Each structure stands twice: as structure tokens, then as C-alpha cells.
């Protein structure tokens, strides 16, 4: 019985947005996360378009020089302006990192 249960648990694939690291203000964070989810849903098959959309929208809303990475597997080391970083998972298999650096 216990094994069956464990299997059930393993099968669950979570798709909710999960924030891994963020030092934005609450307002900005909420808006950025919503934006990321929308972009990931809209361009589910084209990460380039998704990242473009996120970057451009962030530039419009919070000033220029935002950078965005959308992908399933990558590694990065970035320098960002404090209070302007969001690293989150989305849709179960996407990692989105957005930051601002002039």
C-alpha cells in the first residue's frame, strides 16, 4: 500500500509558478511573475519569443536594460542591480531568470 501511495505522489507534476530567488519589491515581483507565466503560456513552443516579450514588457514598465533567460536547462552567472532579480520555475519544466543590469 505504501509503495502505491508513493508512486501516486511521484506522478504529480506541478506546474504552478515557483519563485526560487527574488529581491524585488512586492509589487514588482507580483507583476514580473504574472508576466513570466503569461509569456510562458503564450509562447509555449518558442522560448525566444517568450523571453523577448518578457524583456520588452519589463523595459517598458520598469525602465530599460532588462535581461531575460528562458530555458529548460542552462547555467549562468550574472551581475545584476540589487532589487531587480527574479529567478523562478514555471510550467513544471521552465526556468526563467530576469534581471536588470545597465
Amino acid at each position, binding site marked *: 500500500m505504501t509503495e502505491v501511495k508513493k508512486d501516486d505522489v511521484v506522478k*504529480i*507534476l*506541478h506546474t504552478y509558478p*515557483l519563485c*526560487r*530567488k527574488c529581491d524585488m519589491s512586492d509589487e514588482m515581483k507580483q507583476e514580473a511573475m504574472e508576466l513570466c507565466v503569461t509569456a510562458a503560456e503564450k509562447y509555449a513552443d518558442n522560448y525566444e519569443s517568450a523571453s523577448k516579450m518578457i524583456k520588452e514588457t519589463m523595459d517598458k514598465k520598469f525602465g530599460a536594460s532588462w535581461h531575460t533567460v528562458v*530555458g*529548460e*536547462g*542552462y*547555467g*549562468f*552567472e*550574472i*551581475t*545584476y*542591480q*540589487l532589487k531587480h*532579480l527574479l*529567478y523562478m*520555475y514555471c510550467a*513544471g*519544466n*521552465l*526556468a526563467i*531568470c530576469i*534581471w536588470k*543590469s*545597465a
Partner: protein
Amino acid sequence: MRFRMLFLAFKQKTETPRLLFTQMSLNLSKEKSRMSRQDMGGGDMDWMRGKIHLKPDDQLQLPEIELQEEIARVLMMHNTRIPDALVEWSWRQREFVRLPNPPHLVTLLNIPGTILHKESEEARIQISGGIIMDTQEEPIDFLVERDEDDEEEEQGHEEEEDGQDANQEDEEKIEDAEKPAEAQQEPEPEPEPDEEEGEVVKPKKVPNQFNFCERAALTYNNLMREMSTQTVPPPRATFNAHVFQWIIFDEYQEDYAQQQREKEKERKVPLPQPKKEDLKRKAQMEAMAANIRMLQASKTLERMVNQNIFNEISQDYRYWNDPSDEFKDGEGSLLPLWKFSYEKSKKHDVTDMCFNGRYNDFFAVAFGTMSFGSPVSTGNVCLFSLKNPSYPEWICPTDSPVMCLDFNAQHPHLLVIGTMDGTVAVYNIMLPPTEPQYKSNEVTQKHGGIVWEVRWAPDTEEGNLTFYSVSIDGKINHWVLNQNDLGVTTIMTLYLDRPPIPGPDGTMITLKGCGTCIAFHPNDGNIFLVGTEEGTIYKCNTAYSSIYMRTYDEAHNMPVHRIVFNKYNSSIFASCSGDWRIKIWEDERLEPLFMFDLGVPIGDVQWAPYSSTVLACVSNDGKVTVFDLNINKYRPICTQAIVSKRRNKLTRLAFNAALPFIIVGDDKGTVHTLKLSPNLRLKIKPTKKQLQMTQYELEALKLERLLSFVREPPVLVPPPDVRITN
């Protein structure tokens, strides 16, 4: 005079070239000047006398006749220097030809003007608004300034034609000179001829069109500067991570598990209720604090207003001393100051008054009733401050008329009261006057009748506060303020020394005296005196509850109203009574030393705190009477009616411990403040031998000396011990 003439002569000589119009005019002017000289002769000589004229040493001395002589000079327009026979060689005639004589005109100064003559061709064209077509210059007349030589002017007009060539040359010079300003000035002064002619209504400025100049200025160019600042770059940080699918999966799992745990926790622990009550309480506290501040501010304002209203009284209280005292031979007077009353206690009697031990200007007043059949059924305790005579600082209404009160000396905020229904209560006057801190039990503890006097007593060994009360039911109770309640011990019951009388149902009743006042020995806290309705004074000891140390039988014939010990000699005490008498007693002596009969019932008597021989009393006829035994052993030194004899009675009196005034209460609920005049508060002056003694010793000595006159027998023999067997 001579000098003047000489001066004139000089003048004539120098001026001759100028005065060359005609011989006639010269003569005229000379006559004028002579006349004026004669006129001046009389008046001028006065102020000129004494003047010394400076003259050169080698001045020519002229006789009178020479001075009077007239020297006539004639100016002519004939130039003598002109050559009169100029000749020229003529080649045509082959001979010398005689030339015409040159003109007599000599040009001394020539200033070319920039003005056009109004009549000239160019001016005419300008005035008519046209443009000068031909540039050829017409000969123009110039208005020559009068400043120049007259001669030149005359000749200029005469020889206008001759000088035309010269004028043309002049005009060319004018153009070079370029003086536009002057050109515009001249036409203005001649508007009248224009109007007469009717050609031009308005005088127009007629400028010479060749008179102009250009002016230009070059300003500085502002310098260019560069400014720049460098700001601190925004703070940065680095961040790195790896993204793999399994990492994402693991994170999701962990987060999900975390969420599940939190949910379970929430289910288990319901959120604690927000502390609303605490918040409310806090808000209330804050509101109260603000309220208290507001009250304090308004109280300050009230006092300021009162100070202004009663300014004159305050000044009197501070500075006015009856100046007539010096001539009154020991007699004094009382100066009425403020009156204190409380609106709701107008029908009450002032039954007791007591000054606060800490604040000299602060006293408590008990409002009750003195008469048996009075309709008054409630009482009041009010605290007054001299700083606010219009309204009490603290008002405590009670269910029963208040008959007595006392401030604690060590704890000036504690006030004990006794009421008509036999209750005693202790108030803390720092708290609002709603509830007493201690109150005797209505059933088991209270007195059986009016509590006539309460007095604080020394603390118990445990440190509890205590007080005594004396009541009309014949009991003297000792009260102890315990943690939560009042403990009571009856230390004395005033049994009369009479056989018991038969009661209604066959029982025998022992009669009890009705205590009306009590006074504790200042030095021995155990010994006290009790006065009764019967007029007897008992000397008692707290250690013995059944026997009297001494009985002053028939001390008075009516109820004793007050017993007070002298402040300087503890064996001397005074008592007053309704039998019109004040008596001054010595301990152990059954006969009074002094006795004063005032003819009216006496409400209260008090020793003065500043003197051993001064005592004051109030009587039913509304008078305050002050005795100084040192000054007069038989008569008072001051008797003064304070209130109307018919309507009011005075009931109580209190000395202020430090300040020179007393307060007296009447039966209309009013407290009068009276300032003692200097004669009533005489300080004893030490003799040379007594210089090192303190005032206290001096006062005690004064009283002792006085008593030595009246003691009879001078020394008391202690009575033999008697064995009491019962």
C-alpha cells in the same frame, strides 16, 4: 566813497569797448549810476564805517576834483588799422589800380550752427513734407547767438551780402561738425509767427538732414563652461545557478511538501484572535492621558483668571498690615480676605476645618449640620486652595452630614472624616472623590451617634496607620487601617459616675457620657482628654479602658465644644463650651487658671501656633475674639464681627501653621479668611540675657512667667495614692 569812484573809473575804462552803442546810451547809463551812488550815500556809509580797504601801496592819490572829473570815451565802428590806400598792379591797364577798402568787420569768433533758418528753401520743403530734390545749398541766414559780440551781430546783418561767400563755406563746415541736437532746439521758441501766418498749426522740428551719426556697441560674449558629476553606480550583486530538469522537479517537490506541512499546521492551530481588547484599552488610556493634560491646562487657566479677579485681595494678603496698630496699644484687628463656599453646601454648617500638613494654602472643610432638627441630610467634604477661591479643588459628597475631619501629618494625602450617622471613612485625596479608601462597616463597626471628632494617631508597630474617633454614643474608638479593611478597638466607654438607672424592662442601664471632643497630649500619645455633653472633661489613658486618670467635674455647665493643648506647654490646655466660657487649665489642677466669659456660646477655640499666649475663639454672635494673655489677662485684644449677628453664627476656626491668617467657618457654608494684624502676632523680643535662646524657649518662658502669677497654690501637692478596690 573815493575808492568806489575809483573803482567805477576803472570799470569805465575796462568796459569802454563793450559800451560802444552810442554816446547817448553811455551818458544815460552814467547818469543812472551817479544817481544810484547818491542814493546809497546816506544809508551805505553807516555799515561801511570802520572798514579798511586794501589798496596797493603805490596807488595814485587823486584829489577830489580829479576824482569827480568825467572821462568820456567814444567807441566807433571804424577800424583804424585798416589800410586805406591799397593798390594793385593791373597788367591790362599797365598801372596801379586802387582797390576798394577792406570791410571793417573783424571776426573774433565763429561757431557754425546746425539749425536751418525757417524761411530757407530747404526748411520750407521739409515743413511742407517734401523731400529735398536738389542738393544744392541755398544761402542760409543763421541766427547768431546774442552771447557773441554785439558788433559782430550788427555788422553781420549789414554786410549779409558781403559775407555770403563766407557763409557758404561755413555751411560745409557745419556738415562736417554734425551736431544734430542743436539743430532741433532753435525752431521751438518761434511758434507764434507760424500761427499768425496760419500755414502750419504745429511747430515742426526742422532737422538738417545731413546731421546724423551712427552709434554701435559690442557686448561681451558669455564664456562657456563644462560641468559634470560622477555618481555612485547602483549597487550590484552576482547570482549564479544551474537549471536542469531534475533540479526543477526536486524544487517543486520540496515546495509542495512544505506547503502541505503548513496547511496541516494551520489546521491544527487556529489563528489567535487579534488583541482587540488590548488595543481598545490602550486607546482609552491615551484618551485619558490627553484628557488629564487638558484638565491641567484648564486648571492653570482657571487659577490665572482667579488671580486676576482677586488681585486686590492677594495684594492685601501679601502686603497690607494695619498701620493703625502702632497707636492702638496692644489691640489688633482682622482683615477679611477671600471667602470660600461651595454652591451645593450653602445650607450646610461648616462643622470642621483642617489645614493640610504639606501645603499651607490648602485646607479641607467639612459641611454638615450642628442643629438637631436640621433638614439637611447629606454632607460634603471640600478641599480649597487659596489659589482658587471660586471653586473647590476636590468635592466629595457624602450620604450623611460630615461632622469632623483630619489630615494625616505624615501622609498629607490621607483625610479621615466622621459623619453624623456614626460612620468614619478615610479618603485618599489624590484619587477622584468617588469612593473612600476605607469605610467603617455599616453594621458591626459604626458608632451609635454623631462622630464629633477624629484624630490621627501614631502608627502601630506593624506600620499601619491609625486614628481615634469620639462619638456621642460615649465610645472612643481606635481604628487601624489594615490592608483591606478598618480594624476597630473601643478603648474607652465614658460611663458616668452615677448609679445605674432602671430600664424599661427591668434591666439596669449604666449611663454613658456623650463625647463631643478629644485632644491628645502632644508629648505622650497615650494620654488624652475627652469633653462631653455634660460639661465634664475626662483625662484618660489608652492603656486603661475602664478608669479615668482624672475627672474635671463640672468643668463646664454645657457641652464642651473643643479642648486644645497649648503648642508650647503640654500641661496647659484650653476648653470652650456652650456655657459662654473659655477656660484655661493646667494638668492636675482642678480649678482653671483663666476663665473668660463672652456672653454667647463659643463654637471653637484654638491656640495660635506662633505664640504661647495667644488664643482665638469664634462665638455664636458672629464674632472672632483674640486673646493675648501676655498683654491683657482679662480682656481680649481683638473682638471683631465677621458675619451678621442676627443671621449667621460662626462655628469653627483654624490657624494657619505658617502664614499670618486664620479661617473661620459659619453656619451658611462659608469659610472666611482673615488676616491677623501685626498686634495679633507679636513676636517676643529676647532680652540681652536671652539672646541665645530659641523662639520656642522664649515662648515657653513667657507662658511660664505668666502662669506663675495666677497659680494658686503655686505648687501642687500630688494626691496620696488611693487603693482602688472593687
